[in-house]
């Protein structure tokens, strides 16, 4: 059995105007489906990456898993001991009035000892003396280390990381990514790693899911996804990544934008931007079969 299993999980948000406006202006109720029928298994010790553009629902998946949201449909099964979450903004997620050792010890305040806190700080590359300081005395990268130390305090076996390095400079990002992979090896952690940055995900993930408008459209081992992408959206995303090697590889220019999630297109929601769309794509939602949700792929057209 996998450590974590999501089965047909969906989450709706009610974004209707207030009741009075609905009555007076004859506005209907509006429901935004942020996550739509997502199924995903994560095994112990692996890192699963989730990529997609803003509004694709990847952060909502993270929040569903840690229980910050309740699924509207579907079920989430977790067989581990503890889950923890690491957030993007290390400035917003640490209490500025608390000393670092209090922040790190909060999850274990009835069990923790000063030695335990020192050990946690050392584990993330900080010195035990740093415990006496306040968050504002640290740079962004060091603050993210504090967040990681706090997340590790309760000895979780699963970490949900929502854009953990997106607010950091690239050299600091490298330090944090290396630290996370060291910790994974040493403590046998399992990660769900969410990021809009495909290169970062390719660096850490064993398997990668690509989300578009609330659905997983492709899920594959990282090595396969980045070398032989199947879904047209995955191909488009990969073509959009700046070519740092300046290889001059041929790329298709990106078309269009993510549509309004309140009024998603019919059929396959990617069809207005897809170069391979036909009538069936406009009509019929593609089922997720064998790692991909695309009529063109399943019909062998691409």
């Amino acid at each position, binding site marked *: 059995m996998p450590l974590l299993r999501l089965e047909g999980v969906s989450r709706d948000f009610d974004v209707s105007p207030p009741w009075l406006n609905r009555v007076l202006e004859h506005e209907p109720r509006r429901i935004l489906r942020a996550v739509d029928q997502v199924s995903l298994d994560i095994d112990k010790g692996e890192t699963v990456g989730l990529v997609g553009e803003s509004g694709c629902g990847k952060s909502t998946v993270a929040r569903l898993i840690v229980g910050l949201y309740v699924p509207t449909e579907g079920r989430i099964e977790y067989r581990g001991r503890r889950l923890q979450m690491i957030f993007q903004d290390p400035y917003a997620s640490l209490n500025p009035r608390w000393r670092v050792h209090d922040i790190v010890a909060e999850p274990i305040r009835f069990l923790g000892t000063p030695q335990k806190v020192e050990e946690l700080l050392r584990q993330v590359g900080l010195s035990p003396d740093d415990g006496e300081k306040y968050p504002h005395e640290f740079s*962004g990268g060091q603050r993210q280390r504090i967040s990681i130390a706090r997340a590790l305090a309760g000895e979780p076996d699963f970490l949900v990381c929502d854009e953990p390095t997106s607010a950091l400079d690239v*050299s600091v990002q490298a330090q944090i990514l*290396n630290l996370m992979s060291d910790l994974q090896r040493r403590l046998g952690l399992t990660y769900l790693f969410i990021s809009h940055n495909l*290169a970062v995900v*390719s660096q850490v993930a064993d398997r990668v899911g690509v989300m578009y408008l609330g659905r997983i459209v492709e899920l594959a081992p990282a090595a396969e996804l980045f070398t032989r992408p199947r879904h047209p959206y995955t191909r*488009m995303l990969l073509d*959009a990544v*700046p*070519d740092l090697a300046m290889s001059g590889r041929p790329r298709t220019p*990106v078309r269009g934008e993510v549509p309004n999630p309140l009024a998603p297109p019919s059929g396959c929601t990617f069809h207005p931007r897809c170069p391979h769309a036909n009538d069936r794509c406009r009509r019929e939602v593609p089922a997720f079969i064998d790692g991909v949700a695309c009529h063109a792929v399943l019909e062998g057209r691409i």
Partner: protein
Amino acid sequence: MTLEVRDLRIEFPTRRGTLTALDGVSFAIAPGEVLGVVGESGAGKSITGLAIIGLLEPPGRIAAGEVRLEGRRIDNLPPEEMRKLRGRRIGVIFQDPLTSLNPLYTIGRQLEETILAHLPMSKRDARARSLALLGEVGIPAPAARYGHYPHQFSGGMRQRVVIALALAAEPRLLIADEPTTALDVSIQAQIIALLKRLAAERGAAVMLITHDMGVIAETAHRVAVMYAGRIVEVGSVRDVIHAPKHPYTVGLMGSIPRIAAKRSRLVQIDGAMPRLNAIPPGCAFHPRCVRRFERCFDERPDLMPAGASLAACWLHAAA
């Protein structure tokens, strides 16, 4: 040269002494050229841009050096003249398009006003020009969107409007400070392509400030790498990316994750960039440098030839 910056030094006098945010920065940008300025937060790249357009926040001030636009000195102009220059000769694009757009005016009105403020034109011509510009930056159905307000546009479309505004008066210099950082990767690619095309077509010089080496690789001709208020390396994009000469650039290039089938450990530069009040003597990078030697501790290197590029590093000093 469209833009020449020579020995620019920016200071912030504070109660606890003067902080030097920028020290001895020199570079030039030719017409039609895109110079990428790359560095991590606090390296001084945005401050350089702000100093050029005369928008340095007090108490920050230019303490030494000069800025020339098409040969004419502009760093000592009175604020009123500088204001006319911005928009007319220098276009500016910031990271967040909403800071550059007035939420209360339609985008058509904002474009028309900008054009009328800088160019001798009738209102009718200004409208025609606005529509043409919107089409050029890739806004679908410009006539239909002319009367729309900024909030009715998506982030990518807003940034296109800002680019149209920046180009409205045919500026000779375009300063783009993190123009794609707030955008999704698929939109980023479109905006990069647009900036590149427009700069080439109009022969404007572009100063592209970004932390993203990928954006530089796609867009710029030359790149200047900044660290702790100084340019530590400058050269053609190809040279700097494929054969970096300064140890900081080497570390920076190695720390960028790349899409690869095989996972490998990222190169990591230990430590962090020094704060302005604690810039070490000698080479500011020496405490983090893996290749430092005695000279680096107390003698500060200036840019010197290193292969086809210039690097501020004693490793490249002629013996």
